[in-house]
């Protein structure tokens, strides 16, 4: 048994790998224009392998199996691709719709769900076999098919998502996979465009494009229904045109404080999570896209929409002030921290590179070539609710 195991493991990562390896420091960088992934490791900041044949990867995202062995890649063209992180190759792929926007993996790791734009809905697959388990059409109370956005995993093998056109939040309960149950919350507001679930799995929040505020559902008390928080969020006398939709994913709490990219403004909003009130705004260099808290919560890293997408700002959380502005390349699309936050990786699409920064000194420590890189996803996401 032992010899079989080690023989199998020796095949991993190129047949010549002389030693065993684990996946905890691995990650994938999306090369969006080439339908390719770069497999990287973040202990020494190097590229290990390339995996191609993934189709249209604009706006692609990745989730990981609970053992961090497999990655599930959601492509814009509706492709769902399963990658073996140890063998650096595709081990499964289904074209599940014409047009998708992202996905999630269930709490127990057995199910992968994909959110689709056209036709709008959610498809759920078995994470081992990629066989279809459930197909939920997103027909809103208005009787029309809706684009699905903000698909997140919630405790209890539930997937939460929002209907962009209909303005609804749905909870898809798959505790019993043979009889999926949907609970619908209509009239949450206009055009939810993205959503997040808090790290503790308790609150699902959808940003509304068509009006001010955020629709929030307390998953511990779903009977209380959806409530509106942050009434001023997005309120836009003279807000600027929004050239890129902000992402809500980076939400994390530092003490009682959480941070949100403002819509159409050069500001990051500071929110007190005990009162759900806005308690401050931090002026920044452009319209924020991601406002991501460094693990530990001491610093916040922010990137921007065009035309300010060559900059990244680092905000000191205790003083709520900008500590440093860096220029890691042209068109910085995404950032990802190492699990304990000592490094951050930044993708610069138009510079064709990913740079790695020391988060303490805010200095660049490595650069890796990558063709039109967008998302960066480390395997540590496997153990975080909502990622």
């Amino acid at each position: 048994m032992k010899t079989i195991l080690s023989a199998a493991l020796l095949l991993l990562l190129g047949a010549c790998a002389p030693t065993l390896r684990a996946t905890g420091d691995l990650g994938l960088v999306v090369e969006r224009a080439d339908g390719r992934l770069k497999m990287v490791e973040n202990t020494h900041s190097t590229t290990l392998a390339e995996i191609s044949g993934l189709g249209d990867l604009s706006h692609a995202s990745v989730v990981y199996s609970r053992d961090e062995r497999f990655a599930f890649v959601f492509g814009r063209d509706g492709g769902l691709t399963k990658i073996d992180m140890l063998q650096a190759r595709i081990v499964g792929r289904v074209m599940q719709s014409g047009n998708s926007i992202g996905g999630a993996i269930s709490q127990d790791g057995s199910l992968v769900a994909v959110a689709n734009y056209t036709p709008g809905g959610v498809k759920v697959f078995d994470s081992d076999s990629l066989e279809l388990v459930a197909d939920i059409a997103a027909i809103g109370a208005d009787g029309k098919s809706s684009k699905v956005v903000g698909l997140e995993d919630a405790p209890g093998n539930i997937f939460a998502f929002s209907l962009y056109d209909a303005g609804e939040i749905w909870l898809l309960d798959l505790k019993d996979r043979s009889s999926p149950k949907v609970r619908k919350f209509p009239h949450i507001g206009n055009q939810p465009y993205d959503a997040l679930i808090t790290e503790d799995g308790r609150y699902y929040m959808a940003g509304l494009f068509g009006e001010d505020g955020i629709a929030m559902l307390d998953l511990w008390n779903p009977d209380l229904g959806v409530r509106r928080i942050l009434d001023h969020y997005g309120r836009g006398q003279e807000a600027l045109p929004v050239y890129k939709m902000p992402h809500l994913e980076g939400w994390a709490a530092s003490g009682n404080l959480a941070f949100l990219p403002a819509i159409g403004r050069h500001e990051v909003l500071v929110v007190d999570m005990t009162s759900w009130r806005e308690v401050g705004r931090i002026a920044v260099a452009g319209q924020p896209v991601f406002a991501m808290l460094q693990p530990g919560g001491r610093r916040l890293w922010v990137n921007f929409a065009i035309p300010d997408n060559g900059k990244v700002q680092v905000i000191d959380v205790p003083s709520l002030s900008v500590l440093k502005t860096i220029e890691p390349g042209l068109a910085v699309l995404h950032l990802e921290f190492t699990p304990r936050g000592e490094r951050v990786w930044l993708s610069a699409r138009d510079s064709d590179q990913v740079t790695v920064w020391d988060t303490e000194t805010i200095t660049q420590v490595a650069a890796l070539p990558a063709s039109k890189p967008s998302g960066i996803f480390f395997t540590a996401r496997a153990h975080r609710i909502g990622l």
Partner: protein
Amino acid sequence: MKRLLLSTLLPLAFPAWASEPSAQRQQQLSALLDQDCGSCHGMTRKGGLGSPLTMEAMRELGDEALVATILDGRPGTPMPPWKLMLSEADARWLVRRLKGETP
């Protein structure tokens, strides 16, 4: 402010009356279309949060309406006005590109 924005953003932009953006500008526009318009409309323009901008769909629509949508956006939807970043000549060139009429 607007002047400043435009001059830093568009060092190569031709005035609005010029009929054709420079070759270099065309390259920038083509990248903008793939990447930045692509973030909502899809890199292959098959649609996303924004509607599909396929050649067939675009050929159904008039040039003036399309130029106006690009420059002024569609209020009430996420389609932003691009006129701070694009001249009318730029928008016209993008419309021709969307309709498959550029080389």
